[in-house]
């Protein structure tokens, strides 16, 4: 609906003249005796509402519907007092009062004056637009519920409104807070008691001047008036009616049976747009109810129900207001919806095919009628995402990105909350996304660190805008932990996809890991001084001796070896070992390896016996990296590894099992037979 239309402001004027105290003569039996207690009791006389009560009740109902459907920007003013409190203070009209002093004319003048006052929304629009402020329109509607004496009386009321508007517009021209009325609709509702003849004739809308149009309705009090206002509110606020039929409801008396009920709802008429345009309005079960004045579209309650995690293609959602808010079927339906469940609604079609066209669902205590797309989709049979770009890649970090999305979920912040840089929450959200994605490999085989549980604390912290000292400490601990892992030569989850064989060697793996970690932290190093400290920590922990660095520059090819030697580098440094050329160094290293190997082997007999008696290679025992005191050559490592692997594939030779220093004595039985008891092989004797 266009803003600042006539419906932006509505003033309801209820006549408070003595005549309104007259009874509506619609009797209500409020003494409903239950059968068991009815004997010997005379029921009380029924009560009847006054014209005033009827008018107030219906005005309240009019407001209720408008507030339900338009919580904002539709202002209804009831006689200047729109609260029940104030209404109670006014009380019913006094029949003995002088009719002149409380004429409805005062109310109408007050209504016009209130229409002249600019609303908050109008004021806001006017101030934001400044030079085009005159484009903010001021239109309104006055609904006057009164008891007129005659058609002449009606004309008198109309003239009064017209005159007041002209006067007020003059005043408004010279005021900042007032706005001249450009268009006003006057709706006069003449109320008369039941069983009487009306003295006022109905009249269609008529232009009284360029500013004012007027219409007259003559209605009997009671439910006719209620019905009339219900009919009036629809065109006034662009509403339409939908009746939900076939609502299964448990019977109050017999809880195990259920009957079907209907509930009528009002909502913006755009919810029926599809019917209106296609001319299906009448076909779609539109029926006239209650005195033939109302039109409603019938939609059928549909089972099975839908669940909240389903995303429907919805083209509109409109707030509803039940026509009969307190009736049992209405409150059953609204409570059902307010409890968080949704109902699909089916459009009855003459062809008998089932078309689901609407859905009722509540959001935060407000019920909405959702319009679902029920026609063929132009996007049917689209190519699958797996057929497009990147569709053949199979190792996306789907779970990790899911985690990323959870971390970047949005939440509403109060208007007042602005951060130091005056950024709105949504800008903060964007900048958080930017920080979190500075280094974010999309596939598993592109990353090592994100596949390692050990890196998680650091990876989670480093993306933060600010780090505490404690955070820095956690990051440092993570780094130390990695250093420890490297010292223990723990395996890394390096992807072998795309590389032949078993992938890079352990030390190469750690190099890749450290590099990646550095890339991640470097991306955030500018954020704060504490981020820098994390990077410093990494650089320090993975630092190499100066000559290592030198050599690294000379040839990357040798890096593997160097990294390995680097770990045991201290040993070498002590010896003041310098190398003239790469080759020489290589040779020496190998010699040294052999040397150290020999040493270890010599140590072997003294070392404690392995706990399990499983066949083990001597070399294996010698090789745990923690134990190795001297550098180990790549070749040795490799050979060991291969032998180790091979050894698992065959049963160990009996001789080698019982060997000492890889030497097994042959023909032992001969010695035994000869009675010699000399055993070189310690194991054999034990």
């Amino acid at each position: 609906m266009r803003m600042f239309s006539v419906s932006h402001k509505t003033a309801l004027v209820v006549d408070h003249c003595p005549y309104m105290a007259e009874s509506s003569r619609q009797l209500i039996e409020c003494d409903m005796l239950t059968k068991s207690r009815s004997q010997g009791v005379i029921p009380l006389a029924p009560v009847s509402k006054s014209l005033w009560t009827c008018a107030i009740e219906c005005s309240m109902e009019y407001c209720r519907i408008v507030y339900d459907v338009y919580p904002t920007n539709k202002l209804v003013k009831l006689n200047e007092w729109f609260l029940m409190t104030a209404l109670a203070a006014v009380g019913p009209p006094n029949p003995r009062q002088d009719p002149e002093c409380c004429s409805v004319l005062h109310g109408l003048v007050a209504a016009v004056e209130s229409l002249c006052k600019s609303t908050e929304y109008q004021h806001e629009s006017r101030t934001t637009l400044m030079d085009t402020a005159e484009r903010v329109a001021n239109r309104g509607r006055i609904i006057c519920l009164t008891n007129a004496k005659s058609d002449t009386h009606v004309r008198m009321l109309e003239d009064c409104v017209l005159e007041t508007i002209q006067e007020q517009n003059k005043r408004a021209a010279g005021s900042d807070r007032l706005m001249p009325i450009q268009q006003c609709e006057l709706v006069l509702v003449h109320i008369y008691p039941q069983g009487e003849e009306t003295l006022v004739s109905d009249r269609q809308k008529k232009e009284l001047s360029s500013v004012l149009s007027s219409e007259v309705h003559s209605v009997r009090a009671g439910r006719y008036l209620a019905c009339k206002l219900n009919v009036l509110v629809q065109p006034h606020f662009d509403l339409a009616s939908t009746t939900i039929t076939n609502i299964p409801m448990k019977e109050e008396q017999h809880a195990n049976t259920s009957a079907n009920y209907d509930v009528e709802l009002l909502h913006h008429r755009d919810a029926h747009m599809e019917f209106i345009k296609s001319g299906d309005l009448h076909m779609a079960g539109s029926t006239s109810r209650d005195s033939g004045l109302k039109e409603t579209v019938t939609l059928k309650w549909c089972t099975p129900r839908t669940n909240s995690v389903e995303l429907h293609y919805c083209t509109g959602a409109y707030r509803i207001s039940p026509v009969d808010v307190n009736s049992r079927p209405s409150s059953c339906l609204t409570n059902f919806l307010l409890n968080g469940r949704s109902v699909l609604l089916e459009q009855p079609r003459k062809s008998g095919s089932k078309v689901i066209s609407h859905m009722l669902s509540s959001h935060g205590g407000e019920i909405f009628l959702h319009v679902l797309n029920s026609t063929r989709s132009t996007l049917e049979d689209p190519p699958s995402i797996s057929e497009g770009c990147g569709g053949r890649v199979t190792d996306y970090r789907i779970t990790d990105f899911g985690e990323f999305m959870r971390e970047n979920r949005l939440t509403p912040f109060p208007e007042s909350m602005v951060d130091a840089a005056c950024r709105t929450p949504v800008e903060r959200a964007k900048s958080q996304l930017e920080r979190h994605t500075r280094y974010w490999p999309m596939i598993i085989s592109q990353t090592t660190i994100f596949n390692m549980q050990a890196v998680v604390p650091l990876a989670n912290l480093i993306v933060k805008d600010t780090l505490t000292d404690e955070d820095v400490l956690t990051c440092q601990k993570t780094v130390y932990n990695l250093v420890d892992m490297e010292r223990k030569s723990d395996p890394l989850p390096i992807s072998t996809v795309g590389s032949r064989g078993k992938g890079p060697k352990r030390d190469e793996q750690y190099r890749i890991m450290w590099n990646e970690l550095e890339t991640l932290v470097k991306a955030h190093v500018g954020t704060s001084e504490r981020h820098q400290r994390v990077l410093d920590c990494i650089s320090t922990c993975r630092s190499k001796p100066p000559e290592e660095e030198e050599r690294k520059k000379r040839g990357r090819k040798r890096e593997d070896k160097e990294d390995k030697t680097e770990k045991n580098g201290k040993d070498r440094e002590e010896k003041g070992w310098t190398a003239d050329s790469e080759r020489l160094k290589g040779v020496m290293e190998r010699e040294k390896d052999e040397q150290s190997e020999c040493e270890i082997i010599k140590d072997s007999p003294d070392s404690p016996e392995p706990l399990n008696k499983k066949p083990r290679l001597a070399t294996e025992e010698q090789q745990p990296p923690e134990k190795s005191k001297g550098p180990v050559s790549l070749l040795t490592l490799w050979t060991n590894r291969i032998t180790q692997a091979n050894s698992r594939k065959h049963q160990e030779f009996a001789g080698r099992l019982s060997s000492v220093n890889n030497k097994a004595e042959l023909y032992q039985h001969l010695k035994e037979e000869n009675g010699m008891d000399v055993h070189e092989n310690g194991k054999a004797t034990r």
Partner: protein
Amino acid sequence: MPTVVLMDSSLSMTRPVSVEGSEEIQRKNLAVHGLTMLFEHMATNYRLEFTSLVTFSSLWELMVPFTRDYNTLQEALNNLEDYDKTCLEAALQGVSNIVQQEWGTSCPCQVVLVTDGALGIGRGSLRHSLQTVKQRVEDKKFPLPFPFPSKLYVMCIANAEELQATDSMDNCVGSKLIDQAYSPFHAVMRCGNLTSDVQVFPRPEPVTIDEEVDPMPRTVQTDLEIVGFIEIGDISSPPVLSRHLVLPIAVNKEGDEIGTGATDDTEEETPTNQMAGKSPNFCVLLHGSLKVEGMVALVQLGPDWFGMLYSQADSKKKSNLMMSLFEPGSEPLPWLGRISQLGPASDAAENPYGEDDSKSPFPIQPKNKRSYAQNVTVWIKASGLQTDVQKILRNARKLPEKTQTFYKELNRLRKAALAFGFWELLKSVAELLERECTLLPDSAHPDAAFQLSHAAQQLKLASSGDSKYAAYEHNITPMLTDFSGGGGADRI
């Protein structure tokens, strides 16, 4: 956005085009040539578009129903026959019916009218139609404007002089039409530093908001920036203006499009397509995670304009990344509040989703409850009033156990009666309570009688309108008796 090609097959289309040269070319040939160009373009660049072919003369005929098979369209185009006179109104009516039958009234459509600019003669001619347009009855209106959102392009096969003579509608050259309506919409989707080049299909149309002050058409910018993520349950089937497929595309270094891989024929895989399929793409990652997590990504389409990205599964095993556009504005969904006020959940003092994901900050609760969510009093129908009176009586019979509820209901009725100026009701209910008092059985608790007569007396005082007793804010409180020991606190 489906397309209807409305081809004039009247006899006048066979008129020759005056070109210097030997061979005679008919207008029809030119039209067919133009459409061939259009179909070829669509087959390569706009393959997902549904197109149908309708021919018209004094009658109209649906030659090819909506299809993506451009060969069929081309074939039909090559086998056109010639008929009698031009009768535009009936043809437009036909188009209107065809579109509504297939797509309903909310789906925007493009209609390409190919004609020679001849208006027709006699009944059914455009001139006749326009002359009588004001005197139509409700169900025989001129078919324009169509009941569905539409764009009507007129490809007029005529020379400039003829156009002036007939004062016809727009003249639109084929290639211009292709640029305007059928060029693919390319954009960059980004989530922080992760980006992907995408094609958005169908082209997002500019949107004009129906505001009185300064209505300006808004266009979707080519930079689609993700601002954050929300659970599907929280966004909860929001109303959208339109839906679009988001197809990742490969862009080579020169900036030329290699192909979407998807829109191109998948059967004949070119090496480039294979390459594109194997290099990781952010769209695919995003789609996969959105699908697994059941979430949507909130995406900014322009200033104060947002949409959402989500995984949409076809009935089969196929699924796709889709984008829906919300109504432009700062608060498109009441249950999300202002989008600019949505920030990262990690900034909140307490995790709004709870440590175990059991909570949600959505939906936002409106300031005021709606009438159906609170206990309003409506007595328009007699039954409403009767129910309220019965409630009081039911509780009255269970005094003193129900003292609290009794007075709660009593005060609700009292307040409403005062507001409605319905003093007569207060008197009547007072009498009812007095009678209840006389009907109390001997076994009744003595407190019951005291409370009933106390309540009746208070109602009577209120019905006098005396400001001392009839104040709206005043509440009738339970009488303090020796038996109640402080207002019904001793419930048995």
